[in-house]
């Protein structure tokens, strides 16, 4: 089950008309789907919409009661393909994944869906992973909406607006036979707030009804000549219908005074930032009452030409606030102005940066620069020519270290990469391709293993050029999430079919861990509604890969190292796959901690391991750090004047995974580490034995004290 449970929050999804919902954006979207009479939902997890999938999974009972089908899709392509149910049937469907990478994976299905057109409303909720906190390449989903003709919603980032955009989106989709994308940025997904609820609405026509009354119509099939008709239909019918709908339903909003020399056109998602910037410039109050007219594009594709030209009327200059690049909106709007021969100066990326998240300071400076050029009278003197220099502060950029994400305390992937580093020390550097998932942290210090990632499930495929082999073998790393997402077909059948001589390591941590611990096919958990416990090695055998090594405890660094060495040096031809399995420690702790606490309380025997370092034995060479990076393994400066360098030290957050001891042994580092097992509720025999042992130790210690000086040098 997922890392975070929404069982409590799911109760809020049952709220009815007249009640107020307070919570996170993601949850509000779920509630809005239920209020809109959605018939099926699905998607694939990934920040920032992972929690949306988790909420849906936790709400499965409620969904079933309403007659809504929930599918935890195998990947984004599967999720997008599921929207096919809305092509022929009047069923509203919604799927969610992250943009732009999820949209990339889904693009085949999305393009076919957009060509066929829809009968029931089809909504794709895209979590736009852009700017601070993003884990992917910086691109825009906007381009996909344009190329396949999806209408793109970008609502103002508050709960009522986001909720409204869900129902607007379904209506727009049905009015125009076109699928709609609802784009929510990272912070909007996690923004909290309140909105007034409506009653949940069961779908008028369910997926079960559809199965009972199947339909087909070859005009919807993407085959010539229908595909040509689809294209004509897109531009001649669906597009004008969308323009009319957007105008009539006033999906875009205009704020501020009617008459002003300047105005700002902005994506809905930029609204709060623009208001705050105007507030700083003395041109808006905190409630959003602005002295500059604002044209808020809650729909960023298509752009409605006459609505925009109306806004520009009598204005000298207009600023376009559009985050990301290329500047599709600005270019389109300038074309509109040009075609209308309008005498309006259009600003945008000339005063705002072409690429980067529009944070508070960026927005304030950009809008100030626009106003300085276009309407300097509106700015106060102080803002026009600031004369108080900012305070001079010492430069900390050389002091403060970067803190990229890394493996958690006790992560089972750490020993895998420690073993790889040891093999690298023996056999030299290898060509290594990585995938998507927590294992990608291994490309950062201290391991620095793997130099490229080509996408989810594509790690071994990224080594395709090296499949023919050579002096050394190529290595690819892929997680269990990536394996089931796309890896089995795109990477492993590719290896098998091409008789690759390469090595692939499947990091199997029992979950789709990087996205929040969702179950996958090979998860060991019992899942009532999903099929789990399907071993990866069985799938590999199924596609004819013979050299497979299953390791069931990754913490055995020596075994890990020997297996990797064997894979790299065996004379056997063909793909060599190591499945390295140990449970994600974050999820394991979450699962085991309550059980352990209960056992302790009930008086059952519990053994809690933790590691420690003998300060006196540690010489402060930090060799262990370079094979670990564990947050609980840190450094400590000693009081001893004889010591120059800080020594290793393990804090109370250690979970006793064993990596420290295993690495110290396998890499022959040092004898400083020890493991202490604290036994709770020991039995009588065990206690007696322990007492004997203590007696013997004390006897020897006393014996030495009688013959030797004890200077109490160290404890």
């Amino acid at each position, binding site marked *: 089950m997922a890392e975070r449970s929404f069982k409590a929050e799911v109760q809020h999804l049952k709220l009815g008309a007249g009640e107020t919902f307070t919570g996170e954006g993601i949850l509000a979207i779920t509630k809005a789907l239920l209020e809109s009479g959605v018939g099926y939902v699905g998607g694939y997890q990934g920040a920032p919409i992972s929690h949306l999938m988790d909420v849906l999974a936790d709400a499965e009972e409620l969904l079933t009661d309403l007659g809504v089908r929930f599918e935890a899709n195998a990947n984004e392509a599967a999720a997008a393909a599921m929207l096919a149910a809305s092509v022929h049937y009047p069923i509203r469907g919604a799927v969610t994944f992250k943009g732009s990478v999820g949209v990339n994976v889904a693009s085949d299905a999305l393009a076919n869906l957009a060509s066929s057109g829809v009968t029931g409303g089809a909504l794709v909720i895209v979590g736009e992973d852009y700017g601070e906190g993003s884990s992917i390449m910086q691109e825009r989903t906007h381009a996909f909406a344009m190329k396949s003709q999806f209408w793109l919603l970008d609502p103002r980032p508050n709960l009522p607006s986001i909720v409204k955009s869900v129902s607007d989106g379904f209506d727009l989709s049905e009015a125009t036979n076109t699928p709609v994308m609802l784009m929510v940025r990272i912070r909007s997904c996690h923004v909290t707030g309140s909105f007034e609820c409506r009653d949940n609405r069961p779908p008028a026509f369910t997926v079960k009804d559809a199965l009972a009354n199947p339909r087909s119509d070859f005009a919807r099939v993407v085959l010539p000549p229908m595909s040509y008709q689809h294209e004509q239909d897109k531009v001649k019918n669906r597009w004008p219908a969308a323009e009319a709908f957007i105008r009539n339903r006033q999906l875009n909003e205009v704020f501020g005074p009617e008459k002003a020399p300047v105005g700002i056109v902005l994506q809905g998602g930029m609204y709060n930032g623009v208001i705050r910037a105007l507030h700083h410039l003395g041109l808006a109050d905190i409630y959003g009452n602005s002295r500059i007219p604002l044209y808020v594009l809650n729909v960023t594709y298509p752009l409605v030409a006459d609505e925009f030209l109306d806004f520009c009327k009598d204005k000298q200059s207009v600023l376009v606030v559009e985050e990301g690049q290329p500047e599709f909106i600005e270019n389109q709007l300038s074309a509109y102005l040009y075609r209308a021969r309008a005498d309006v100066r259009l600003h945008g990326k000339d005063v705002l940066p072409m690429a980067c998240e529009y944070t508070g300071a960026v927005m304030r400076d950009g809008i100030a620069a626009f106003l300085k050029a276009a309407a300097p009278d509106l700015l106060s003197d102080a803002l026009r020519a600031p004369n108080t220099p900012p305070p001079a502060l010492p430069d900390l950029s050389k002091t403060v270290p970067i803190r990229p994400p890394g493996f958690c305390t006790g992560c089972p992937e750490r020993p895998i990469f420690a073993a790889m580093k040891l093999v690298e020390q023996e056999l030299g550097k290898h060509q290594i391709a990585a995938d998507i998932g927590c294992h990608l942290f291994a490309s950062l210090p201290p391991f620095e293993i793997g130099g490229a990632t080509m996408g989810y499930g594509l790690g071994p495929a990224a080594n395709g050029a090296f499949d023919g082999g050579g002096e050394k073998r190529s290595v690819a790393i892929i997680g269990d999430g990536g394996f089931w997402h796309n890896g089995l077909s795109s990477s492993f059948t590719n290896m098998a079919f091409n008789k690759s001589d390469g090595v692939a390591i499947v990091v199997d941590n029992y979950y789709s861990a990087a996205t929040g611990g969702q179950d996958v096919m090979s998860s060991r958990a019992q899942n009532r509604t999903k099929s789990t416990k399907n071993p990866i090695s069985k799938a590999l055998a199924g596609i004819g890969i013979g050299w497979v090594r299953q390791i069931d405890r990754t913490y055995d660094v020596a075994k890990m190292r020997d297996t990797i060495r064997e894979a790299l040096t065996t004379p056997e031809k063909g793909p060599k796959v190591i499945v390295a399995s140990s449970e994600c420690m974050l999820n394991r702790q979450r699962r085991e901690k309550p059980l352990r606490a209960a056992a302790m309380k009930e008086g059952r025997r519990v053994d809690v391991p933790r590691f*420690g370092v003998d300060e006196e034995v540690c*010489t402060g060479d930090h060799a262990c750090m370079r094979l670990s990076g564990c947050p609980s393994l840190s450094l400590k400066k000693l009081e001893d004047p*004889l010591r120059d360098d800080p020594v290793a030290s393990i804090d109370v957050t250690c979970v006793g995974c064993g990596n420290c001891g295993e690495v110290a042994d396998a890499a*022959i580092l040092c004898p400083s580490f020890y493991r202490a097992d604290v036994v709770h509720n020991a039995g009588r025999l065990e206690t007696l034995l322990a007492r004997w042992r203590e007696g*013997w130790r004390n006897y020897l210690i006393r014996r030495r004290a009688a013959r030797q000086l004890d200077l109490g040098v160290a404890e």
Partner: protein
Amino acid sequence: MNAHPKPAELTVSTGIIKVAILAVGGQGGGVLTSWIEGLARANGFVAQATSVAGVAQRTGATVYYVEMAPAGPQMPVFSLMPAAGDVDVMITAEMMEAGRSIMRGFVTPDRTVLITSTHRALAVSEKMVPGDGIASSDEVMAAAGLAARRLIAADFEALAVASGAVISATLFGALAGSGALPFPRTAFEDAIRASGKGIEPSLRAFSAGFDAASAPAAPAPEAEAGTIPAPLATGPEALLREWQSLRAEIDALPAAAAEMALAGLRKVVDFQDLAYGREYLARLQSLATLDPGDGHLTREAAKYIANAMAYDDIIRVANAKTRPQRGPRIAREMRLKSGQLMRVTEFLHPRAEEIVSLMPAGIGARWQANPKRMALIDRLFNRGRRIRTDGIIGFSMLYLLAGAKGWRRRTLRHAQEMAHLHAWLDRVAAARPEVAIELLRNQRLIKGYSDTHARGQSKFARVMEGAALVEGREDAADWIRRLREAALQDEEGRALDGALQTVKSFT
């Protein structure tokens, strides 16, 4: 720190109070955010929180942000992210994160109350350095003093651990204690109660954080740690008398070196015996004659000769693992309660080199030169050994090894270490005082066990070679220092290669 903060002073300026939190994944930043949000909503405010969840939360640095304003007929438009120069309260859950918040412009002297924990969660880049790579908290603290309107700094992590809670609770207490938000203490505590999980420890930690933030600055705990009394010597009467007389000889050394010499003497006597301590003092006294007078050279000699003489061999490790003080120390660290038992497992991995190093010097050297014999020993001994030092067999084994001190002086290892020591001290004795100090300090490069130790020796040798090239120059000491520092920068010695290149280019 203010004893009597003025409440509600921030609400006047803009109507919106902005609170940013910078935390490291796993510190409970999300919980703290939801407490603040709940607090505001329960006390007649409207509030909005945002965060950047996702993969950055896996041990990375993450920002949480809350805005709040008194509820009224109109809903304010809240921003989704903090803006540079526009943050009222900045809470950072770690010292370097405070530095990061200052770098990002979130802390400004006109408005920001900065609440930071002074503890360190070291970044990987700091831990990897073979030398001391820990970033300077003092620099950040100095910048924080300049950047913040008010600075509240304490080790909120230690306070939290002492209360059995997470740092989010002590920071919430500090926020209450700071008076930066217009709510009474009870309202904060109610917010914790309303969240429903781990209430009691959180309230204890809250209280500790509150006191730390509202009390006048207490002396830093580090200051107290410096005054630990010297440990008492115990043992047979005759040996104690001899120890006292040996100790008294230190008084003849320059005053500046006395403390170091005592520490050094303790270390070598503990390592071997009183006779060995006498040798140590003899070496030290002979070098002290070269000291130009400030005692500086003698102090460095006291430090590094002790470290070189008390080398890290198996006997020393065995001794450390069977000390009477060790069991109680580990029990304390593991927070062993009465009625609980503890097992202790050591991870040892002897190689042929270690076995041979215990042989008599002559025989050992012959074996070491014979690869076949080394391979044989490796076959017999080279594997990981898990030894239970709470157990009778494991403890006895190490106890016996630790008792082999009498044998030590005959071993191959001892012969090698003494050869190293003599060659090194000869170089030191022949050098000008300021160069001698740097040559002494090069001993710092030799540390670790097995391969790490071998790498350290090779670095030492290369730095000493480089030193020989520059020794005639006026600025020799400075160059030797630079070479040593380069050698401590990375494991492979890349920086040292570069520094040696530079030295060779002008010599």
